[in-house]
């Protein structure tokens, strides 16, 4: 008993798509070869320095806890910077997000301009802002704060304006029909709707800032990063590993806190 349809059915020919996969793989291989040449892949160097690397790793596993008191000012500054930057950017981003959303800004020209500017602001990495501000304003936490605020604005405005775009606009329609201006209608009808998202994104930005604050010091913008910068030039890995450990602890604590906070918000 055969398992088949009527004998004589025309069998379709197997589609010949294998060549597509070959092309893709060839392209990927080509790019990889080119990039390894460009960056100077030097496997030999790894082999030579493997011993060094192992040493470093061992030192990294043994943080020097006695160094802790000296790290406290930098640690504190990291947290302070993050909090201040979050607070400032959260306040500035609110009106800007409303300007950047089609749901709350009826003026297409202004909308386009704000969105474009925000896209540009968002394309610049945080460390780059930090470098620029350090040169313009000087080293220290102030440049870090400026850098973080700009960095946050781009992210916050994008996230919040996208949330606004998707909201139910019924209350806004009613407010406009009752003679309120766009500003009043948005404030009264749209703001409460977007508030939970806004708060959740503010917490996300705080997380990002704490992470970023730990490293912007590498270019002089304050916080733990400056300590890393000082310490790495002397190859003091025991100290370095303590600092890294602190960073790890902060980040992990943050993640726990934020998932806790986010869960309480969702309900």
């Amino acid at each position, binding site marked *: 008993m055969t398992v088949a349809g009527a004998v004589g059915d025309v069998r379709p020919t197997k589609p010949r798509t294998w060549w597509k996969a070959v092309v893709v793989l060839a392209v990927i291989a080509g790019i990889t070869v080119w990039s390894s040449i460009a960056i100077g892949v030097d496997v030999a160097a790894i082999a030579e*320095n493997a011993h060094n690397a192992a040493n470093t790793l061992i030192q990294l596993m043994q943080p020097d806890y006695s160094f802790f008191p000296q790290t406290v000012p930098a640690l504190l500054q990291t947290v302070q910077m993050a*909090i201040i930057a979050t607070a400032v950017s959260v306040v500035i981003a609110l009106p800007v997000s409303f300007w950047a959303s089609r749901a709350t800004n009826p003026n297409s020209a202004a909308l386009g301009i704000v969105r474009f500017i925000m896209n540009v602001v968002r394309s*610049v990495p945080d460390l*780059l802002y930090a470098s620029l501000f350090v040169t313009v304003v000087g080293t220290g936490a102030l440049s870090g704060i400026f850098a973080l605020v700009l960095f946050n604005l781009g992210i916050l405005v994008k996230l919040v304006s996208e949330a606004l775009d998707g909201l139910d606009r019924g209350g806004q329609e009613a407010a406009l029909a009752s003679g309120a201006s766009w500003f009043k209608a948005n404030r009264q009808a749209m703001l409460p709707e977007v508030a939970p998202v806004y708060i959740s994104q503010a917490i996300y930005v705080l997380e990002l800032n704490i992470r970023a604050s730990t490293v912007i010091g590498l270019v002089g913008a304050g916080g733990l990063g400056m300590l890393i910068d000082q310490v790495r030039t002397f190859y003091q890995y025991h100290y370095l590993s303590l600092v890294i450990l602190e960073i790890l602890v902060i980040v992990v604590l943050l993640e726990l806190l934020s998932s806790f906070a986010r869960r309480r918000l969702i309900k």
Partner: protein
Amino acid sequence: MTAVTTRQTGTERPSSTGPAASRAPQRPSKPLHLGTKLIWVVVTIVVIAAFWSIDISWDALLTLPQKLVHYLGLMFLPPAWSKLPDALGATMLSVAMAWFGTLLGIIISFPLSLLATRGLTPAVVRWPLRGVFAVLRAVPEVVIAVLMLSVTGLTAFTGALAIAIGSIGTLGKWGYESFESVDRGPIEAATAAGASRLQVMRWGVWTSAKPDVYAFWLYRFEISVRASAILGLIGAGGIGKMLVDNIQFRVWDVVGMLMIVVVVVTMIIDQLSGMVRHRIIEGRWELPIVTALRRRSVKRARSESVDLKITADD
């Protein structure tokens, strides 16, 4: 003239008041919301404390606007286009760093993420692995790069390795998350048909998870490109290095040109990877900007008719 009669409508309960003559429901009192208020008070105190305790001189704030204008002028009026070829070369180097690093990260993380999937390996293997992923995710890439100084010096190769190591954490996590969220049906069918564990992974898990995995590989590449620019800022090469050199030597018109290059390249990569992701998920090549414009015109047509209430469902 307020309503005095109350009506039973089945949806409200008139409150009981004193004298039988007045049956108007009482106005409720404003709720206290003490919990929420407490949270706001705490947050405000923390913020004020941060402002108060930080050790910086705020007077730089006063001169900031004019300084900004001054420097923006130096950077962009006009930017140093003559150095554009150098900038593009440096950009290529950064992209190469990102490509190599991401590829390496993918190769390493792929088997590891499979091993970390619930249902494919025992817990004693999974949890340490997930822990490693978490640690690698938590350490910022720049720190990894700094650590690798002694191994390969601060070069583009270091940058690529740092990107690779950093990406193992996120790629690993996204990997096992998508493997775990796969529809169980094909897996059951494969196991019932007698497939070995490897075959189940290949045909049951991989085929379903493939689009998501390709998508986040691409997304990770995007992130890596940004990371490579950042790593350049601490000296690893590429456009970041060119930037930091020119910033240090205050060659502002080159800095301005480089900023434009960074922004434009970031935007192009966003669009390109959006297009490739669109292709993977929806099977068509389309630039995100085209999709957005198309959706906007459909939405506009629809909203015009909704405003005027002439839709099909009317």
